[in-house]
C-alpha cells in the first residue's frame, strides 16, 4: 500500500511537471508575440522593447521557464500586468468561490445520480427505469450554460425566488448561498445525467451476482439489500466517473461563472484574456489543469480504499 502510494505520488508529480512545461511552451513558443498582442501592431519599437524587458522576455526560454516554475512552487505566480497586483493574490481572492461551487455541484451530482441510478437499476425495464434513462439522455444533450439561462428565466425572471446572477460576498452567508443555488444546480444536473447511467448499469451487474440473491433469500428487505449490499459493490465504476466529473465541473465553472457573473477563477481567466494578461492566463490554466490531474490521482487512491480486493494486486 505504501509502495503503491509512493509510486502514484511520483507519477502525479511527474505529470504536474509535464503539464507545467506544456502550458509554458504553448503560451511562450507558439508564433504569437505577446508584446504585439498586448500593445497592438501600431506600437512604437521603444515601447515594445520596454515591455519585452519588463516581461522578462529577453532571457533564454529555459531560464524563463525555470524562474517561472521556481516561483510557482513557492506560490509566486508573478505580477499581473493588467491588475498590477500579484497573480497569487488574485487567485487567493477568487479560489474559495470556485471551489465552493465545484464541491457543492459535485456533491449534488452524486446525491442525485445515486438516487436516480438506484431507482432505475432496481426497476429494470419498468417505467421508473425508462423515465430515468430518457431524462438522462436529455440531460447529456443539454449545454450547462443553456440550462443556466432556463433556470434564470424560471426562478429569477418569472418566479423571482433567486437572484439571476452576481455574488454578494461571503459577509452574508445566506445571500452567498442563495447566489450559488442556480449555478450549482445547472452544473450538477448535466453531470448527474451521466453518473445516473453509470450507477444504473453498475447496479444491474451487481444485482445479477449470487450474494445479492443470497441476501434476498435470507429475508432482508429489498431496500436494505439495495443500499447496503448492492450499492457499495457497485461503487467502483461510479467513483471513477465522479473523479472525471469533478474535473468537468471544475472546468465547467469557467463557463458557469460567466453565465452568472460570479467573481471566481473562471471569470478571472476571461478578464485576463480580454486584457491580454498572458501571465495570469498561464497561471490559471496551470491551476485548472493541476486540479484535473490531482482529481484523477485522488480517484486512483480511492479505488483501493473502496475495494480492498484491489490492494493485493497493487502491492
Amino acid at each position, binding site marked *: 500500500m505504501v509502495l503503491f502510494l509512493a509510486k502514484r505520488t511520483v507519477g502525479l508529480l511527474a*505529470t504536474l511537471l*509535464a503539464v507545467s512545461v506544456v*502550458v509554458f511552451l504553448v503560451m511562450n513558443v507558439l508564433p504569437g508575440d505577446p508584446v504585439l498582442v498586448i500593445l497592438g501592431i501600431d506600437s512604437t519599437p521603444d515601447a515594445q522593447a520596454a515591455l519585452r524587458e519588463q516581461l522578462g522576455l529577453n532571457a533564454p526560454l529555459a531560464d524563463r521557464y525555470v524562474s517561472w516554475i521556481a516561483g510557482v512552487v513557492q506560490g509566486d505566480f508573478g505580477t499581473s500586468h493588467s491588475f498590477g497586483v500579484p497573480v497569487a493574490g488574485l487567485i487567493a481572492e477568487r479560489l474559495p468561490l470556485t471551489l465552493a461551487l465545484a464541491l457543492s455541484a459535485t456533491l449534488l451530482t452524486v446525491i442525485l445520480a445515486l438516487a436516480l441510478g438506484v431507482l432505475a437499476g432496481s426497476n429494470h425495464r419498468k417505467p421508473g427505469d425508462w423515465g430515468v434513462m430518457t431524462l438522462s439522455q436529455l440531460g447529456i444533450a443539454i*449545454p450547462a*450554460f443553456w440550462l443556466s*439561462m432556463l433556470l434564470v428565466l424560471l426562478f429569477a425572471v418569472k418566479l423571482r425566488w433567486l437572484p439571476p446572477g452576481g455574488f454578494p460576498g461571503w459577509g452574508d452567508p445566506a445571500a452567498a448561498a442563495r447566489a450559488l443555488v442556480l449555478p450549482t444546480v445547472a452544473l450538477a444536473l448535466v453531470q448527474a445525467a451521466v453518473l445516473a447511467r453509470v450507477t444504473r448499469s453498475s447496479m444491474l451487474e451487481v444485482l445479477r451476482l449470487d450474494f445479492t440473491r443470497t441476501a434476498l433469500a435470507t429475508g432482508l428487505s429489498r431496500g436494505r439489500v439495495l443500499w447496503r449490499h448492492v450499492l457499495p459493490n457497485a461503487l467502483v465504476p461510479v467513483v471513477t466517473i465522479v473523479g472525471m466529473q469533478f474535473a468537468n465541473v471544475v472546468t465547467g465553472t*469557467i463557463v458557469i461563472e460567466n453565465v452568472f457573473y460570479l467573481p471566481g477563477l473562471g471569470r478571472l*481567466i476571461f478578464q485576463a*484574456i480580454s486584457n491580454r494578461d498572458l501571465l495570469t492566463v498561464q497561471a490559471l490554466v496551470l491551476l485548472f489543469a493541476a486540479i*484535473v490531474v490531482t482529481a484523477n490521482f485522488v480517484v486512483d487512491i480511492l479505488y483501493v480504499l473502496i475495494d480492498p480486493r484491489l490492494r493485493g494486486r497493487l502491492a
Partner: protein
Amino acid sequence: MTARRTLPVSLAIGGALVALMTAAALLSLVWTPHPFAAIDVANRFQGPSADHWLGTDQLGRDLVSQLMAGARTSVAIAFVAVVLGGSIGTALGLFASAVGGIVEDAVMRLADFSFAFPALLFAIMLAAVFGPSLTNAIVAIAFINIPVFARVSRAAANQVWTREFTLASQVAGRGGFAITVDHILPNIAAPVIVQATIEFAVAILAEAALSYLGLGVQPPAASWGRMLSEAQTLLYLAPQLAIYPGLCIVAAVLGFNLLGDGLRDITDPRLSRRP
C-alpha cells in the same frame, strides 16, 4: 434472444434528427427564408408571422434563417474537428498497436496525459496567445479528439492483431504497415465510426460553449452558441430568443448521441443486449 430485424429505436430517432439538421445546414448554403445576417431594425423583436416563422431578434434578423446558418456552422466545425482529430488519433492508435512495446506505452501515456487539458482550457490558451478565432476553436476540439480515437483504435486493433488472418499475413511475410492498411483498418472501422458519431455530439456542445464565451465563431457568422450569448443580455425583454438556439443544440446533440448508440447496437451485437 431472437435476432431482431427492426432497427433500434435510438437509431431511427437519432438518424432522423441528424438528417434534419444536416438538411437544414445544406439547405442554408443555397436558401434561407431571409439573408441570415440582414439587419432590419424597424422589424425587431417580432413574433412569429408568415414572413418570419419564428420572429426576429433585437436587430430584426430572421430567426429561422439564423438557426439554419447556425446548423451549418455547427456541422462544419464538428466535421472538420472530428475528422482532423479522429484521423490523427486513429493513425496514432494503429501505429501504437502495430509497433507495440515501449512505443505503444509511450503513445498511450501521452493520450492519458492530454486529458489534463480539456478543450476549453486548450482553447483559452490559444485565445490568449492568438486572440479568439474560429480556427482556435477547431484546433482545440480536434485536439481533444486525438487521445479518444487513439485509445479506441488501439484497443480494437490489438484485438484484430491476435486473429488468425493477421497471423497468417505475418507468416506470409507482410510488413506491419501493409497488414495495418489491408486487414486492421477495415476491421476496426465500426468502433471508430461509432466513436466519431458520439464525438460529433461532443464537438457540437464544445463549439456552442466556446462560441457562447466568445472564443469560437466571430460575428457576423451565425452560431447557436453566440445567439444564446446575445439572447442572455435580453432575457427579461425577449426570453423567446434564448429558447430556440438551445433547442437546436439539444436536438443536434441528442441526435448524434442516439445515432451513435444505435450504430453500436447494430455493429456490435455483444453490446446490444446489455442492460
